[in-house]
């Protein structure tokens, strides 16, 4: 055996002096094509052993230039594109566009359309939340909950499809109301679907609430404090899980939410204080119950309402007067805002999209450092984002 060279001996001494093995930071790419990320979000992690030192979400792999495309589309064509960035909440996305245009036009929407829109938006919220309630355990290694989540999704999607014709991209909003009225007997079928989901939701909950493995993976993991939430403009269920009591449905009511979140309304804002992955999941689960309450209230209002139209007669060429407006709505994942600037043309001069997931995903820079790689998937999944909504 050859004698160790003086150089090697020196290296060993230094390493021992530094308190263990000499380590170098490793850069690990998670994604853009990785089974642990949904969609094409790429994370560049700098690792010190198993511990994450730095995390940087690299976005844009699914950028489709939606904002630029809006500028060469009229307001009906914009709905087609707008409902696609967050494909889990198409109805909510359409809603922001038409609300902005209606505000600029000073257009009054028929009351029936307002309540139908509110109900459909809440059904869409339940659909989006159920998706994450199913997919998040899947990322943690629990395969079963997704089947229960999708059984309920299917129930609600059936009524959405019956009214709008679409299962994901509803295309049901129009400037001034809805595309057409709902089919006969549809309200009864919505009621049946909501009751069925309510009846069977305990099945899904039994897999999630109090499950020891899920709790062990999520409690105290990825704690997000309120200050960081506010710095990064995080919104929606993630912000509320950290104790930030903000919900545009209550704080800046649109549609019929002023009544729903009013004095005797069924609406309430779900918050948690822990700010960890478990809290985020709990907020989602409880919001499903709240949204189902809201749907039931909408059904009772719609059932006792005078008959009337669901849309306004529009001119052949719809031009929005010169000016600008910003309309923000509470999408399932957080604030979804449209900043509409019009120069009096039939297309917007600029339509800026403020999507919830974009801000929510940025906070990973703060959330991930200090955690272990094994917790990375749990944290990543609990920030509930849709890559299309990030990249626009």
């Amino acid at each position: 055996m050859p004698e160790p060279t003086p150089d090697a001996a020196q290296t060993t001494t230094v390493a021992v002096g530094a308190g263990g093995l000499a380590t170098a930071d490793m850069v690990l790419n998670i994604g853009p094509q990785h089974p642990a990320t949904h969609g094409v979000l790429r994370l560049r992690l700098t690792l010190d052993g198993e511990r994450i030192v730095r995390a940087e979400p690299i976005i844009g792999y699914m950028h489709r230039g939606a904002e630029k495309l809006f500028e060469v589309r009229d307001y009906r064509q914009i709905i087609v594109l707008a409902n696609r960035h967050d494909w889990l909440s198409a109805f909510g996305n359409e809603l922001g566009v038409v609300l902005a245009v209606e505000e600029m036009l000073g257009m009054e929407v028929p009351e029936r359309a307002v309540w139908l829109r509110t109900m459909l938006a809440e059904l869409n919220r339940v659909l989006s939340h159920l998706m994450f309630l199913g997919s998040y355990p899947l990322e943690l290694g629990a395969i079963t909950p997704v089947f229960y989540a999708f059984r309920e999704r299917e129930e609600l999607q059936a009524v959405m499809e019956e009214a709008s014709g679409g299962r994901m991209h509803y295309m049901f909003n129009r400037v001034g109301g809805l595309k057409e009225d709902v089919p006969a007997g549809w309200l009864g079928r919505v009621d049946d679907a909501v009751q069925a989901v309510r009846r069977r939701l305990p099945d899904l909950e039994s897999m999630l609430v109090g499950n020891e493995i899920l709790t062990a993976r999520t409690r105290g993991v990825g704690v997000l404090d309120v200050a960081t939430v506010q710095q990064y403009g995080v919104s929606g269920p993630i912000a509320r899980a950290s104790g930030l009591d903000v919900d545009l449905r209550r704080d800046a009511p649109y549609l019929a939410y002023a009544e729903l979140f009013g004095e005797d309304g069924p609406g309430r804002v779900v918050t948690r204080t822990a700010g960890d992955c478990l809290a985020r999941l709990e907020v989602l689960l409880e919001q499903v119950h709240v949204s189902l309450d809201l749907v039931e209230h909408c059904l009772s209002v719609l059932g006792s309402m005078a008959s009337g139209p669901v849309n306004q007669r529009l001119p052949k060429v719809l031009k929005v007067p010169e000016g600008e407006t910003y309309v923000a709505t509470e999408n399932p994942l957080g604030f979804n805002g449209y900043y509409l600037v019009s120069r009096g043309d039939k297309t917007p001069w600029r339509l800026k999209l403020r999507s919830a997931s974009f801000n929510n995903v940025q906070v990973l820079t703060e959330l991930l450092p200090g955690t272990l790689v094994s917790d990375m998937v749990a944290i990543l999944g609990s920030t509930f984002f849709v890559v299309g909504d990030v990249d626009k």
Partner: protein
Amino acid sequence: MNDETKRNGPTNKGLLPGILKGLATTAKTATRTTHTHEYPDVAPDLPPRSRGVIALLEENCTSCMLCARECPDWCIYIDSHKETVPATTEGGRDRQRNVLDNFSIDFSLCMYCGICIEVCPFDALFWSPQFEYAETDIRDLLHDKERLGGWMETVPPPPALDERAAEPAEVAAANKPARMPRGRAT
């Protein structure tokens, strides 16, 4: 259960009650009948408004190009030519009419928004819930007017509207009193 007790609630007591609860649900569900359909053998029950494929009623099309222009991604291709119809009466005037040569929709581009159907002033386009037209070659997704016409037989009648819906525009227009000639207004 409030936030605090849930947080400190289940702990590892050996029996793992939370996991047992989940297993109980699985056992209970295993005894129930399935809620899924064996798709290729059992056709799905789709509502009439379902947006599966676009059907063309060629007789109604005047090749006005409205659908092609309003399509957000321009996936409708229309070619037509003008034909002269000779006058049918003595001293009459020859008429011109459009003849549709080509009407194709590229379903590899189509975003299934339904704007073409909405803007068609002559009811030549319809939604059909039919969806089984996947192809192995993307070029075969360009449906020509014969293929689009073939979908017509799968178009269902539109569903009746909710009892509280406003009366359809056609009914409202028919019930409106006829406009009086000028000067004889009552």
